[in-house]
């Protein structure tokens, strides 16, 4: 078996597309914790984030042949992650199973104090604010796209992102 750990993302993708599913394991290992973190950021629930992470990786395998390599694989993956999570929340909200309220007991008790602080801060943000941050920094949406999806002006979208980042910076740094 070739030493896949030395392969670039695009080389791994070529191998997977040629039917070498062992290469998929290396791609998974390289990115799964980043995907899980991003899922958690949007839904703020560890079990849900784990389920979404699984679904996303199956989706990655099914749609990998559509990745054009014009941009970095990570950008493609994070946009897919963001869209999948936001669609999940939208479908739950639509059926009344998601109110946007997050239980305040979610942070792990053994987490360092700084981590609990961040969890509590994110829980205080509205779902809409977290969605805007996710679109901007996880999905790499442009302000024009955010403006169209959220039905707000481009300058309002910019201002909102800037305000939210300032808030995060003030509370948790760096």
């Amino acid at each position, binding site marked *: 078996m070739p030493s896949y750990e030395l392969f670039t993302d695009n080389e791994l993708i070529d191998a997977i597309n040629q*039917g070498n*599913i062992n290469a*998929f*394991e290396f791609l*998974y*290992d390289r990115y*799964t*914790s980043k995907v*899980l*973190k*991003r899922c*958690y*950021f949007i839904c703020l629930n*560890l079990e849900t*984030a*784990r389920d979404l*992470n*699984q679904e996303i*990786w*199956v989706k990655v*395998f*099914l749609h990998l042949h559509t990745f054009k390599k014009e941009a970095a694989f990570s950008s493609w993956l994070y946009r897919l992650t963001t869209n999948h999570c936001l669609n999940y929340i939208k479908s739950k909200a639509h059926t009344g199973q998601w109110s946007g309220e997050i239980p305040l007991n979610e942070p*792990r008790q053994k*987490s*360092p104090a*700084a*981590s609990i*602080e*961040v*969890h509590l801060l*994110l829980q205080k943000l509205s779902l809409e604010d977290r969605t805007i*941050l996710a679109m*901007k*920094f996880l999905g*790499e949406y442009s302000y024009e796209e955010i403006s169209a999806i959220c039905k707000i002006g481009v300058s309002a979208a910019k201002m909102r*992102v*800037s305000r939210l*980042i300032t808030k*995060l*910076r003030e509370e*948790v*740094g*760096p």
Partner: protein
Amino acid sequence: MNDDEQQTFEYVLDSLDIPEPDQTTKNKIMKAVYFLNVAKEVGAFHASIPRTLFDDSNEE
């Protein structure tokens, strides 16, 4: 994109201290991928068989 903003955002993500995905999850995903890959190969094989071989009509 503003690098400072992205950096702050990445810092927030890292500060969440989310546990690494477990081995069971990985096994489940790899099993699903294995079966999907088999299905893809069977599908490709099926598609490669000339349609006339499936034709059981008695038309001359």
